[in-house]
C-alpha cells in the first residue's frame, strides 16, 4: 500500500469485504509493506496485539520472505479499530515453515480482517494458519487466505482452520480460502465454520452456578485460545491472550 497507488476497489478480490470509505481518508498516509526477511535456517516470530491506528483505521502490511529451512511465526489480534486490516504476504523457501495465529474480535460497526497470501515457491515447505473470530453487534470479521503452490513446490503441506462465533445474528463473518495449486504432490487442508455459542453448554454451566457472562467468557476464551496455542514463548502467549481477553470484555 502506498500513496502512489490508486485506492483499492471492491472489485479487488482481497478488498471485497473492506471498509473502503474508512480507508480512503488514511490511504495517502500509509507506507508500503514492511519487509521482513528470515535468513535460511533461522527462526523468527512477531506478535501484533495493537494495531497502529490513524483516524480509527489500523493497517498492518507485511511482506515476509522465509528462507530455506527457516521458520516464521506470526500471531495477531485484530481489535479496536473502526476498520482494521492485517495483511501478510509470505513467500516460503525450501522446507520453510510459516505459522499464523490470529484472532478477530469485533463489535459495533467494526470491520476487521486478516488477509494472507502464502506463496509456496519451493518444495517441502509447510504453512499453518489458524484464525478465530468473535463478532458482536453489526461487526464484520473476514479472513481471506490465498495459498499459491508453484509448479515445483512438491510436498507442500498447507493448512487453514478458520472458525467464527457470532454473538449476535446481526454480525457477519466471512471466511474465504483460495487455493492455487500448480504442483501435483501437495497437501492443502482448509476448514471453515461459523456458529453461535452452544446453548446447551451455557445451560450446563449455569446449572453449576456460573452466571451467563462468566460462562460466555470461559467459552470464548477457550475458543480463541486455538489461535495462540502454537506459540512457544509462554510469556508472549500470555501477553497476547490477556489483550484478547480485554477485547472480549468489551464485546458483549
Amino acid at each position, binding site marked *: 500500500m502506498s500513496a502512489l497507488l490508486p485506492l483499492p476497489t471492491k472489485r479487488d478480490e482481497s478488498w471485497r469485504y473492506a471498509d473502503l470509505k474508512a480507508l480512503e481518508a488514511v490511504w495517502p498516509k500509509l507506507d508500503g509493506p514492511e519487509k521482513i526477511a528470515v535468513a535460511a535456517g533461522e527462526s523468527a516470530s512477531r506478535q501484533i496485539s495493537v494495531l497502529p491506528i490513524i483516524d480509527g483505521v489500523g493497517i498492518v502490511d507485511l511482506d515476509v520472505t522465509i528462507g530455506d529451512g527457516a521458520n516464521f511465526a506470526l500471531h495477531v489480534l485484530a481489535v479496536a479499530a473502526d476498520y482494521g486490516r492485517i495483511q501478510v504476504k509470505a513467500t516460503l523457501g525450501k522446507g520453510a515453515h510459516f505459522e499464523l495465529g490470529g484472532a478477530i474480535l469485533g463489535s459495533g460497526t467494526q470491520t476487521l480482517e486478516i488477509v494472507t497470501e502464502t506463496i509456496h515457491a519451493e518444495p517441502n515447505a509447510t504453512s499453518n494458519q489458524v484464525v478465530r473470530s468473535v463478532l458482536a453487534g453489526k461487526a464484520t470479521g473476514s479472513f481471506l487466505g490465498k495459498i499459491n503452490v508453484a509448479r515445483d513446490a512438491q510436498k507442500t503441506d498447507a493448512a487453514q482452520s478458520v472458525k467464527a462465533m457470532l454473538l449476535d445474528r446481526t454480525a457477519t463473518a466471512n471466511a474465504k480460502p483460495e487455493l492455487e495449486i500448480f504442483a501435483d504432490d501437495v497437501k492443502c487442508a482448509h476448514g471453515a465454520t461459523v456458529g453461535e455459542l452452544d446453548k446447551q*453448554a451455557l445451560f*450446563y*454451566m*449455569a*446449572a453449576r*452456578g456460573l452466571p451467563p457472562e462468566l460462562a460466555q467468557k470461559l*467459552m470464548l476464551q*477457550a475458543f480463541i485460545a486455538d489461535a495462540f496455542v502454537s506459540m512457544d514463548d509462554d510469556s508472549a502467549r500470555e501477553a497476547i491472550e490477556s489483550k484478547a481477553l480485554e477485547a472480549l470484555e468489551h464485546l458483549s
Partner: protein
Amino acid sequence: MIKIENLHAQVGDTEILKGLSLELNAGEIHAIMGPNGAGKSTLSYALGGRPGYEITAGSVNFDGQDLLELDPHERAAAGIFLGFQYPVEIPGVSNLQFLRESLNSQRKSRGEEPLSGAEFIKLAKEKAGLLKMDMDMLKRAVNVGFSGGEKKRNEMVQMGIIDPKLAILDETDSGLDIDALRVVGSGINAIMRKPEKAVLLITHYQRLLELVKPDFVHVLAGGRIVKTGGPELAVQLEEEGYEAVAA
C-alpha cells in the same frame, strides 16, 4: 425443603407436566420412575430453569424462596444441583477451571469467601478419590472424549465438590456398567445421605435403588405423579411394569 405444587410445564406448544405435585423434606431420598415420555427429564429441566421449558402454572418453593423467580445460576447458588442425563462437552475449558469458577461464583452469591487454588485442589482431589476418578481427568476439558460412564462419574465428582442441598439426578445410572454403578451409588450416599440434604433420583431401573435406598418412590405418568409408595413400589414396578402398577 422443596414443595412443588400443581406444576404445569410446556416445551413449544406441547404441555408435558400437567399438574405435578411433590414435596421433599431434608434427609429424604425420593425416586421418580416412569415410562419414556412421562415428563421425567422435563421435570428436572423445569426445576433447573432450562430455557425453552415454560412453566404455565403452579409453584415451586425451595427453602422459603420462589424457585421459579430465579435464573438457572441462582438456583444452583441456592443449593440445587442438576445431574444431567447427557452431560455436555465444553471444549477447551478444563474441569478444574470450570468447577472452581462455578463453586466460587456460588460462594460469592452467598456472600462467602472464594476458595484459593490450593484449597480447591485439595477439595477436588478428595471428591475425585471418593468417586475413584483420576485427577488427570479433571485437568482435561469438561467431558470431552469421556465415555458415557466417565461423564456420569464426572457429574458425581462435580456434585461432591459443589456440595448442594438438593440433588436432582436425571438418569445418572444410565450408561453405567455394574462396577461404575456401584461407585456412583456409594458416591451419592456419601455426599448426599445427610440429615440436611435431599435427593430426587430420576431413574428407569430398580438397580440403582438397591444401592441408594429411597424413602419414597413415585410413579410419573402423563405429566403427573400417579402413585407414591415406599421402596417396595420400585420392586413391584420392576416385576409388573408401569402399565399394570400405574393404571
